[in-house]
């Protein structure tokens, strides 16, 4: 059995190229792309690394939906025609490779690390930062983020407003604010509580529906909103 793989190419101008791939049991979209690159056209550009949904490198649109190519089996797409395109809301470097500079700059802007008032103690801790299981539960799912950019690509607000941090950055802001060990809430709220910040989320929920790790960034944003509205500290 064969499938038709339609790959978005960026040179000389954006177009699609069709490849016929022999289907194997358990074949993923990434496997099909690697087959095409190894046997049919060496010039296909794509980014991948771990092949097991850990590194978040192979995010792309598969049949119009942002997905991890390594995590998507062809059998689950229920079609013999597969169309792969680069992620939306990111500049295209070449073919399926997109520029994540903007995405990572938003991520960095929310200070995605523990902030303690006592810097000396943080650098040279004398004891562990203890947490109860229920305190860990508050942010645990958000710490599973692999920064694949699928939620950023699916977000309709990011599509309209490039200054909007996006669901990934906002969910990470929540992840650290909700962490009982963190004391940097004000620093993060200063970044996200702006005219192009958290208030611009329209709760479309696409971020949560495309997350390959089952994280719910939309929920994180709503929980974070309680902090910005001073309803919760």
């Amino acid at each position: 059995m064969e499938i038709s793989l339609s790959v978005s190419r960026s040179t000389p101008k954006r177009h699609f190229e069709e490849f016929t791939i022999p289907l194997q049991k358990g074949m993923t979209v990434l496997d099909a792309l690697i087959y095409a690159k190894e046997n049919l056209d060496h010039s296909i550009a794509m980014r991948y690394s771990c092949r097991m949904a850990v590194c978040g490198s192979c995010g792309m649109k598969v049949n119009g939906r942002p997905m991890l190519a390594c995590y998507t089996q062809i059998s689950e797409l229920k079609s013999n025609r597969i169309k792969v395109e680069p992620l939306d809301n990111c500049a295209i470097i070449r073919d399926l490779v997109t520029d994540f500079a903007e995405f990572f700059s938003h991520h960095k802007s929310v200070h995605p690390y523990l902030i303690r008032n006592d810097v000396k103690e943080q650098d040279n801790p004398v004891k562990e930062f203890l947490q109860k299981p229920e305190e860990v539960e508050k942010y645990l799912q958000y710490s599973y983020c692999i920064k694949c950019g699928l939620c950023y690509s699916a977000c309709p607000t990011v599509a309209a407003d490039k200054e909007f941090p996006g669901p990934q950055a906002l969910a990470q802001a929540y992840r650290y604010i909700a962490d009982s060990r963190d004391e940097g809430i004000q620093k993060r709220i200063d970044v996200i509580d702006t005219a192009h910040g958290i208030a611009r989320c329209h709760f479309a929920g696409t971020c949560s529906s495309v997350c390959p790790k089952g994280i719910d960034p939309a929920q994180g944003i709503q929980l974070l909103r309680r902090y910005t509205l001073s309803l919760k500290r």
Partner: protein
Amino acid sequence: MFFLGDYLRESRIMLLHYFSGVGILVSGAIHLVLVFFVGSYEENLSFDGGIFSVIAVYRNFAFAFTLELLLIFVAFHAFNGLRVILIELYQGKKWEMSVNWVLTAIAAFLVIYGTRTVLLARLI
């Protein structure tokens, strides 16, 4: 609210936005109930002297006060909603400031003009 710019956090503006939304619902409902009880629809709609009947309704303090509240809530809610749409459409400090100032000016003008109408109707 818009002229405070960077000094007023977006979350505060949005809190006022939600509050004004509820305010529209409450003051709008009170307004409709008062119109029903204070004035008579038949009188208000009558060609002959209907205008005086409407003006007479404004003399009722509760009615005028609710109408003033409704005016403020609607002006804030509508123009803040428009501001949100416009700053999402295009980005840039200059554009944002222009949107804030122009919309604040229009909203302020509408509130002042509406307040004047309410006050004048009470004085007639």
